[in-house]
């Protein structure tokens, strides 16, 4: 068998659960145990609640914009739960639910979308990079963090997220290649939700799948059903373990779907029909895992209540925090540009301060 066969993805995305929540065999993936699946389920419920709550805050005019991961929660949760504490997560603007699943304070996460500042949380606290907007650029930072960890002798793994559209950027290519050449422990996790704003996958790539890009770097590519929470977790955990063991980077494509418009500012009726969306609603990752757990009688009423309450608590925290955000200080404009303000910035800060003091501010 040619060397490349081991690097090529399966013909169909890997699955552990079908749409009705029944176990599917033959993927070769280990099924996470029930305790773990319950944990995943809890996180899924919170992730969905986070998406819904953020959407509501946008409608109320309390957040400027929100790119929702509604329908992609299995990926969000899997990416966060597959990591150990010492690992790093590199999320995009759409991965708010993953960032929260990793334990970052939701209000700090929403700082950006509230317009108070840019990245609102301390990236070192939970080892979560700032959510990246310029597409694919963060993948290179992920490689750098991973390579530095290796140089320092640490066994950190880095999970780097991006969308299907971002795979077209040059930085995606350079990141995969650098990671492969340096055998950096990075799991590149592409959430293929079929759209980059309005542009469908067919306009983005003519490849058999995005996971097929791996072989061109000597990186194993895998495909997973992105709406199967069990399979996503299993495939990511395996990849993280391989990377940690020195196996180099992995490329994983999750097949999922962006149920809502790109953001609240987008009008998706201009480029897709409801008919296209509907079947994906039926593939909802939450109901899928819920059905599975119910069938296994693993989801007690008490547990369910507990899960719902935890999710509601996060939502309540978001509602509270988003109103109470203090106005940022104008002086902060100059505070973080350099480690010490340059004479020029000091002069400009003084200018603004003087202007504000004249206005009585």
């Amino acid at each position, binding site marked *: 068998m040619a060397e490349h066969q081991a690097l090529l993805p399966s013909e169909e995305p890997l699955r552990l659960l079908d749409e009705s929540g029944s176990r599917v065999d033959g993927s070769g993936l280990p099924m996470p145990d029930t305790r773990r699946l319950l944990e995943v389920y809890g996180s899924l419920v919170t992730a969905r609640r986070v998406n819904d709550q953020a959407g509501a805050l946008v409608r109320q005019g309390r957040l400027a914009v929100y790119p929702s991961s509604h329908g992609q929660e299995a990926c969000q949760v899997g990416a966060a739960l597959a990591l150990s504490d010492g690992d790093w997560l590199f999320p995009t603007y759409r991965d708010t639910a993953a960032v929260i699943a990793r334990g970052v304070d939701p209000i700090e996460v929403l700082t950006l979308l509230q317009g108070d500042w*840019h990245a609102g949380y301390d990236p070192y606290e939970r080892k979560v990079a700032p959510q990246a907007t310029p597409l694919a650029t963060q993948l290179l930072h992920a490689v750098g963090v991973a390579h530095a960890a290796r140089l320092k002798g640490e066994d950190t793994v880095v999970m780097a997220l991006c969308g299907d559209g971002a795979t077209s950027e040059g930085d995606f290519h350079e990141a995969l290649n650098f990671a492969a050449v340096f055998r950096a422990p990075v799991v590149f996790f592409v959430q293929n939700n079929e759209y980059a704003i309005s542009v469908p996958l067919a306009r983005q790539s003519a490849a058999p799948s995005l996971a097929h890009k791996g072989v061109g770097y000597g990186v194993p590519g895998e495909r997973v059903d992105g709406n199967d929470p069990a399979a996503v977790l299993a495939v990511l955990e395996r990849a993280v373990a391989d990377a940690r063991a020195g196996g180099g980077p992995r490329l994983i494509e999750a097949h999922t779907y962006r149920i809502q418009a790109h953001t609240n500012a987008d009008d998706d009726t201009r480029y897709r029909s409801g008919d296209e969306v509907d079947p994906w609603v039926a593939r909802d990752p939450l109901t899928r895992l819920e059905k599975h757990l119910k069938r296994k009688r693993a989801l007690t009423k008490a547990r369910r209540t507990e899960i719902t309450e935890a999710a509601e608590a996060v939502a309540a925290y978001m509602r509270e925090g988003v109103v109470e955000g203090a106005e940022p200080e104008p002086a902060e404009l100059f505070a973080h540009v350099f480690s010490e303000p340059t004479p020029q910035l000091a002069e400009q800060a003084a200018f603004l301060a003087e202007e504000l003091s004249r206005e009585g501010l």
Partner: protein
Amino acid sequence: MATEKLSMAQALNRALRDSLAEDPTVHVFGEDVGPLGGVFRITDGLTAEFGEERCFDTPLAESGIVGMAVGMAMNGLRPVVEMQFDAFAYPAFEQIASHVAKIRNRTRGRVEVPLVIRVPFAGGIGGVEHHCDSSEAYYAHTPGLKVVTPATPEDAYFLLRESIASPDPVVLMEPKKLYWAKGEIDVERPAAPLGRAVVRREGADATLIAYGPTVPVALEAAEAAAAEGRDLQVVDLRSLVPFDDETVCAAVRSTGRAVVIAEASGFASVSSEIVARVTERCFHSLAAPVRRVSGFDIPYPPPKLERFHLPGVDRVLDAVDDLQWEDQ
């Protein structure tokens, strides 16, 4: 006459439509410019009207978009590409600086690349990071690029039409915050050639030099100053490259005082250039040093702080007051 009231976004759309209709070599492409009509709807309806070959979506890669445009232009077409936001044009920087700007010169004029790069730029819309950069200096500093920026719907229409018609590559900086501002436009009036500034308001005491998003600020400041008895002249540059030294210097000489207003960070910017060249040329007509009101030398601020960064009317009026000062 054929006067209509349109927003700048509509005027740009009209310019694209008229160009597509008149010239079969014009092709419009970029991210989300097809069925969606662009995130600012500047290309609204063009795919439906002219078909997939004339207005189309590309894969998500800005260097790819500009690089492909270079090749298409080499092969006889007139591409008009959209960069979705200012900061998202940076991945295309090598293509722009090393090819778009240089290929005519490299080939002794044999290869023309008559392409237009449309860049929605600047702030004032409450956008999050990377969506509000004023990036005009990067292009204006690069020899071989024409760089123009409209402040009114009518100028937007004609600058885009003239940019498409130009045999030279043009970077059209579109001030986002003016996309929705309406103005009268007469598409039948003869277009001014690229490179001409315009005096938007006459005035005898001092000259405000503005472009793109700061032109309305300058006009408002002039209005406010008039109420206080100060008669300010307003020049709208429209074109940064070529630069209209003639109009600008005549204006400054007529008043002896000038304030340059730009959103971009001031350091090594277009506003520095304007101060420098006006001073070089009009030194002995100046009663005071030319003042700058520009963005601070900081990354573009988050929405809740942008008003402190942006040149506003008060800051402009303060600068005008300063034109009397002695050197400290």
